[in-house]
Structures are given as structure tokens and as C-alpha cells.
């Protein structure tokens, strides 16, 4: 595997954490209850911390002197490598929880597998992150059950959120050529194996939540290659505007 390809692979990991972390940060001061406001922003903080570790490492692998901040703040939409699911707007609380639920079950399995990588630094980041993701996954799964097996209204709403976002879940679970190269090189994870466990685990929670498992059909994709939905540009504009307006600003 070329260094440039390895760089791309690590960018995908870092960008997923960063973009979802930024989205969750939008809940700050807007949570439906104080505890949830704190929970969503705590999770955001974990994700941004994970993103820092990945992007710092990606910069070193690339070897062009870019650090975590340059990678986060000075790339445009087409240079971002996160899956499209994670840039989707927060919507209402149920939309945010459904998006989180789909991703948390993926990232828990991702880090379990990444801990077996041949790359020491990826092992270190995965071993650190999985402890945090364990709490995230419990939080979003508990909410799926509470909302699904809740009131008539909450059940309808969370089922709608789930059905809508389901078509975005395929991208993170489907290996493309770069994923396959990373796996063959012993660095990356086996997404087909992860997908199998993911489907079983997600179906188990949805059964407890008395929710219907959506039908898997056509799936959105493109983010991993830099082809995003219309939402990412707005997110980046907000996230990047200070460092772009004042490029050398220091705290």
C-alpha cells in the first residue's frame, strides 16, 4: 500500500469522527433536556478528540508537514472523506439519535477490528476510542428502545428517522477498492465481517425497541471518495470560518 493510499484511509477514519463531532456540537445549548445537551456534547468531545488523533497521524503519514488543524480547517468539501450519513443535518432529536445509533454500532465493531491492525498507531487510537464508543453505543441504543417502545408519537417519529437514514448506512459497511487494499496490507479492517455483526446487533436492538427493521435497498454513497451531499459545505463553512478568516490566529 502506497503512503498516499494509507493517508487517504486514515483520513476517512478521522473525517468520520470530525464531521459527526461537529454535528453533535450543534446541539450545545439546544438539547431537549439538560442531561441530553450534556450527553450529546460529551460525545462530540470524544469524537473530536479521536479525530485529532487520526488527523495528526494522517498528516505524519502524508509527510507534507500538514498538522491536524491544517487538515481539519483548510480542506474543501471534495477533499473530505467522511461517509455521507454523518454530514446529514441533526433534524429533531430522534433523527440525531437514529444517525448516532447506526454509526455507534459500526464504530464499536470498527475499533474492535482496528485493534488487530498491523499499524501500531492505529491500534493505539482504536484501543483508546473503543472505551469511549462503548458509552456512546449504549446511550444511542437505550434511546432507540425508549423512543421505539415509548409513546405512539415517539414510535412513529423514530421509525421515520430510522427509515430515512437507513439508506445512508450502506456506505460505511461496504468495502471499496481502498478498503480492500488496506485490509490486504494488514492495516485496515474487514468491512464485510463488520457488516455481518452490525446487522445482527442492530436488528437485536431494534427488536427490543419494537421497531421494524428497514428494508435494505439502494444506498447513498460517495463521501469516501469526496462526493458529498449538499449539507457538508455549510457545515465546513461554519467549522472553518475562524481559522480561514484569521489563518495564523493563536489562542
Amino acid at each position, binding site marked *: 500500500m502506497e503512503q498516499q493510499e494509507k493517508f487517504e484511509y486514515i483520513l476517512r477514519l478521522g473525517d468520520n469522527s470530525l464531521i459527526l463531532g461537529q454535528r453533535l456540537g450543534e446541539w450545545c445549548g439546544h438539547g431537549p433536556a439538560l*442531561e*441530553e445537551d*450534556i*450527553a450529546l456534547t*460529551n*460525545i462530540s*468531545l*470524544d*469524537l*473530536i*478528540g*479521536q479525530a*485529532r*488523533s487520526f488527523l495528526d497521524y494522517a498528516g505524519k503519514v502524508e509527510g507534507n508537514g500538514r498538522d491536524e488543524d491544517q487538515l481539519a480547517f483548510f480542506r474543501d468539501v471534495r477533499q473530505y472523506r467522511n461517509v455521507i450519513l454523518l454530514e446529514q443535518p441533526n433534524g429533531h432529536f430522534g433523527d440525531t439519535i437514529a444517525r448516532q445509533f447506526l454509526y455507534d454500532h459500526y464504530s464499536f465493531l470498527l475499533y474492535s477490528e482496528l485493534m488487530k491492525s498491523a499499524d*501500531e*498507531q492505529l*491500534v*493505539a*487510537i482504536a*484501543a*483508546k*476510542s*473503543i*472505551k*469511549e464508543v*462503548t*458509552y456512546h*453505543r*449504549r*446511550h444511542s*441504543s*437505550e434511546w432507540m428502545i425508549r423512543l421505539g417502545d415509548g409513546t405512539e408519537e415517539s414510535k412513529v417519529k423514530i421509525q421515520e428517522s430510522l427509515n430515512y437514514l437507513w439508506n445512508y448506512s450502506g456506505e460505511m459497511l461496504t468495502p471499496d477498492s481502498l478498503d480492500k487494499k488496506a485490509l490486504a496490507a494488514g492495516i485496515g479492517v474487514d468491512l464485510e465481517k463488520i457488516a455481518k455483526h452490525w446487522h445482527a*446487533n442492530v436488528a437485536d*436492538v431494534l427488536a427490543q425497541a419494537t421497531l421494524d427493521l428497514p428494508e435494505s435497498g439502494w444506498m447513498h454513497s460517495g463521501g469516501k471518495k469526496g462526493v458529498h451531499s449538499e449539507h457538508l459545505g455549510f457545515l465546513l463553512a461554519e467549522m472553518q470560518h475562524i481559522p480561514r478568516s484569521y489563518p495564523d490566529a493563536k489562542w
Partner: protein
Amino acid sequence: MNTALTTDQIMQILTEVKDPEIPVLNVVDMGIVRGVEWKGELLEVTITPTYSGCPAMDVISTNIKTILHKHFGDNVKVLSTLFPPWTTDWLTDDAREKLRAYGIAPPEKGNSDKSLLFAEPKAIACPTCGAQETTKVSEFGSTSCKAHYKCKVCLEPFDYFKCI
């Protein structure tokens, strides 16, 4: 310049550096300092974050440099490592007692099944009145490392230092 100090003595000096968010604990109690090593005339101190996004890391790093500057001037480097990942099992018994006295319930020791999807933690004793009848309000609290609980007996809300 004072290269005569042993690493044990330096660890002792580092107990003066407190965790900015939990000032009753120092960075050695917390298990944040992973190593102190002389590289020739350069002293390398290795620290590890409790959580990936822990905002206290920069402050801790600066405070370590400030305290060691008195002894060793600029010959101090603070490095950060992620592996092995920090765990609450590294909190010393002394640290657990200090937490309790400060009003934060200390983490359970050696909680074996941290990775379960739905794991009910054992009863967490209220740090104020000692009652076992407490209830979890949220697994996310005032900082990354704490969960939010409430005592059913004295009705006080409290922080629980959660296991990772």
C-alpha cells in the same frame, strides 16, 4: 540543571501538579504520568489522556513544564502517548479515597465487562451519606470522565467517576 534527581524523586515533584478539573487529585494519583526518563540531559515526561478529547491535557502539560522548570530549566519535554489506553483501574486507592471525600463517587475496581451493550453497574454508594440506594441520571456528566447520579436517601445529586 539538576540531573542528580532520581526518577522517583521527580515523580514526587509531579504530585504537585493537580488535575485542573478535579483539583484534589494530582497527575500521579490519576495515572496520567506514564513515565519519566532521562535522555542525556533532557528529561522526558510521558503523559496519557483520560479521554481522547480531554481538554485538560494542554493545561496539564503546561503545568508539568512549569513545575519542572524550577528544577531543570528548559531541559524538559512532555510527550503524549495513547497506548496502553488509560483506565480507571490505574487510580490509586489513595486517589479513590480523595475522590470520595471531595464528593465524587470513585469508580468500581476492575469492572470486568466494560464492553457490554447494556450493563447495569453495581450499586454506587452516595459519597455524601454513604447510602447504596442511588440512581443513574445520565452516563454523561460534568466532564468526560464522570456520570451523573442521584441519591435516593439524602436526595443529593452527585458525580460518579465512570469506569473505562
